[in-house]
């Protein structure tokens, strides 16, 4: 099996706004291999979120193809997409999106509920995922008892718990101060070092500098696609 995780060809997505048609993506091509660490940048409205939704199987293209691990996602129905999201994708959101009344552990277990995992295994894997993001001692805290950085780490643990082929983060540091952003970037780096494929959207160059590859979008197409130079020490 090839190590091509994502293969997007001539992808378009248009939205009908009354009489107008908005072209969010206009024939986009992109390939991402296993264990890449990609930052997607671009001005506001360039189609970053739309692309993330496609890659995350929350949305389907108007035309073009999207292959994820050799499966053509662009032709799948709702239930199949839900299953792919559950197994292959780990989402990290700008606003964390934790269930406020559930403990950290319970939040992390949520994707496993939909995977049909037994309660005992859910617990074990939830604890393991929280330990990976350094929150072994915060498992039974509720989100309002955690700092912003800790909340985002809970969200990352939740994204990891199903051992997804890609970790997708849309502006993961958008709601965090710079010190906390660094903390989250260190988590991403560690995960990447362990072999995780990471794709994140950001408009901050400093954050993008943590990635190994930067894809810049403009008007729904790839404007540039470059490898970051290793930082001088």
């Amino acid at each position, binding site marked *: 099996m090839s190590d091509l995780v994502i293969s997007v060809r001539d992808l378009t997505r248009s939205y009908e706004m009354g009489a107008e048609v908005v072209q969010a993506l206009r024939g986009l091509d992109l390939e991402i291999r296993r264990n890449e660490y990609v930052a997607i940048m671009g001005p506001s409205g360039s189609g970053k979120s739309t692309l993330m939704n496609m890659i995350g199987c*929350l949305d389907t293209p108007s035309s073009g193809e999207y292959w994820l691990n050799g499966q053509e996602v662009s032709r799948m129905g709702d239930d199949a997409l839900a299953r792919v999201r*559950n197994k292959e994708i780990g989402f990290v959101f700008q606003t964390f*999106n934790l269930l406020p009344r559930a403990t950290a552990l319970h939040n992390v277990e949520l994707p496993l509920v939909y995977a049909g995992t037994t309660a005992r295994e859910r617990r074990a894997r939830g604890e393991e995922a929280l330990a990976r993001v350094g929150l072994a001692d915060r498992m039974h805290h509720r989100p309002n008892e955690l700092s912003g950085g800790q909340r985002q780490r809970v969200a990352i643990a939740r994204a990891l718990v199903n051992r997804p082929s890609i970790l997708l983060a849309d502006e993961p540091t958008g709601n965090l101060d710079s010190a906390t952003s660094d903390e989250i970037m260190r988590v991403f780096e560690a995960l990447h070092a362990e072999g995780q494929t990471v794709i994140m959207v950001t408009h901050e160059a400093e954050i993008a500098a943590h990635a190994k590859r930067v894809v810049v979008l403009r008007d729904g197409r790839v404007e540039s696609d470059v490898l970051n130079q290793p930082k001088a020490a």
Partner: protein
Amino acid sequence: MIPLSRIGEGVLMALDAMRANKMRSALTVLGVIIGVATVMTMASIVQGVRSQIFNAIEVAGPTTFYVMRYFSQTPLNPDNLPYEVRIRPVLRESDAEAIRQVPEIQYAGMWIQVFARLEYQGTQTQMITVWAADDHYMELQGGTLLRGRFFTRSELTGEQVMVLEEQTAEHLFGRLDPMERTVRVNGVPFRIIGIYLKPDNIFEPPGQETAGIIPYRAAKYNLRYDETNTLWISVKGRPEISVAKAQDLVTVALRRERKLRPGVPNTFDLITQDQILDIMGSLTSAFFGVMVALSSVALLVGGIGVMAIMMVSVTDRTREIGLRKALGATRREILLQFLVEAATLTLMGGLLGILVGLGLGEVLKRVLNLESSVPLWSAALATVVSVGIGLAFGLYPANKAAAMDPIEALRHE
């Protein structure tokens, strides 16, 4: 397929959501609570009444039957009797005597149910029942003589004597000894010659509790009563013959006594215990039907409340729904989550309603002096119905949640 454990989880989630919004949840299911409580209360009363009737008839023995001037399911207005009733003669002692002459008949006696207030030196009872019968009363109706004696043969000719029921005695006399004292029955003096304990299982609707027994003729000569609705001949055949056979013999004897030519219809009616059971049964089912209708309205209101609150809950939790979908929940799983939540809500309401209903039933049973336990089926039915209401009225909001687009739901503020 969605595994059962997922439903268990849904219930836990629902309970959690309920804890978060206790007041709102309680108000939501109030209608369900009221509806279920009504059904439960009624079921326990109906059950109680039915078993009392049954027991009463058990005591009287299934072989006892009654001769009446006219048999009507509802009491007739004595001041305005229909023609077909008026042409029939009022029952007389000679009728009872004619029946008693039949060798296969063990007992036949004139009985009157007199509605009266009893009074002793200023202490009064409610309107209750005094039976005018004879010394065989307890053989047919059960009970125990606690003190004194029943009527002698000579007292049956119309002496104003009375065997007083124990509770009534206590009510009227307190710690005084009632024996040989005089109570007034609708103003007419009667001397107490005995105290009697009612059988446990006698069926006595409110206002018809037995307060005492007096000789038939004492009532006939001194008290007012309704000759159509409350006067009858109680008849018991010998154990070796069937009720049907006994009824045939009684019919023949009475027709002969009244000199009815062949082809002329009977001028009296025979009533068996089965018929009484049927009437009581249809009365209680009618009563029950009304209550079911009323509680259905309460349940409907409750269901609409559940639907409204679930709509609010779905809107409140739009982001949560988006998140769950992003994490891999299918439409069906979201649908199930909210259905389970609605059903849990109404099930809680139903269980509370059962408790309230049991409590009310208990109180009413005390008040009405019934003996019964709440039928298990009604608790089971109430549980099923309340879950059903949650599912039915939760379907629309749950479907709304399931149909949400995950991207838009996640963007919801």
